[in-house]
């Protein structure tokens, strides 16, 4: 019974901790992990007093708590980097390129098979300038296999440049400088019974 209650408490706590972690995606990784661990520890301490469910309830609105942590990290009105925007930029470039590649290859295939649906032979597609390298299509009775057609390095440059600009990653530099200024934590052993 006590074990099941403890398990339930842990589940309540972990749910709150990971919900908070998701809301703190814009924090630098090290800081986010530190906040997560500290919150978990505080919730466990509170759970010993009032139970897991109540401990989580006492936190109040997790959105407010997350906003408080973000403000503590970046300041009241400072501009923050956005990992979500960076990821969105990566996905956007990826999606655009995937669609472009699919449409171009489908068009090339349609052009070949329009004249002779059951065609056999080898055909060369020059790709998309600067974005998609050339590709060789080998047809056998109207169906093809292909070699090549990779994205050029420029695509990856665009992808990461988009993530850097979209996510405003240069703002991480000031956060990193702040972190370096912070005192490093020293792990010390607590003598048993030394705390009142």
């Amino acid at each position, binding site marked *: 019974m006590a074990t099941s209650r403890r398990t339930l408490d842990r589940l309540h706590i972990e749910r709150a901790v990971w919900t908070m972690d998701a809301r703190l995606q814009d924090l630098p990784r090290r800081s986010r992990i530190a906040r997560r661990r500290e919150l978990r520890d*505080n919730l466990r301490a509170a759970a010993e007093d009032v139970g897991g469910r109540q401990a989580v309830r006492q936190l109040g609105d997790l959105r407010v708590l997350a906003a408080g942590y973000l403000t503590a990290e970046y300041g009241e009105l400072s501009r923050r980097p956005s990992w979500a925007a960076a990821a969105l930029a990566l996905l956007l470039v990826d999606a655009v390129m995937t669609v472009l590649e699919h449409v171009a290859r489908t068009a090339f295939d349609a052009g070949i098979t329009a004249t002779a649906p059951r065609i056999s032979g080898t055909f060369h597609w020059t790709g998309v300038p600067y974005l998609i390298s050339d590709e060789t299509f080998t047809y056998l009775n109207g169906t093809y296999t292909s070699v090549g057609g990779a994205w050029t390095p420029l695509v990856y440059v665009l992808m990461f440049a988009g993530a850097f600009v979209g996510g405003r990653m240069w703002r991480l530099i000031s956060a990193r400088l702040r972190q370096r200024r912070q005192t490093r934590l020293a792990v010390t052993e607590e003598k048993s019974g030394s705390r009142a």
Partner: protein
Amino acid sequence: MAPTHDPQLLKGVLSLLLLRLLAERESYGYEVVQRLHALGLSDISEGSVYPALARLEREGRVEARLVASRSGPARKYYRPTAAGVQALAEGTASWLSLAAVVHPVLVRRLPDPPTSPEDT
């Protein structure tokens, strides 16, 4: 039933209270909350204390150290830095001088309301 306090007033003095409590004795997050509750500030939630501690740490007013705990992983204990002690002294002086002005005004007896002719 504990009296409720104005959240805006509490927010203004929370950092000062935290510095004071940590100057008296280093504590970890939940312990600070318990100490605040023991003072009668039961309406201060963990959700406002933890970010306030994080802000004080970022500002360099408190420093933290991990202390091994018997009941689980190491706990993060906070204590004021030299800058924090100075901020506490300045904040305390500022609060006391403000209270010295505000308190007498607020506890003054209000004048009796004027009686209208209909009352007589």
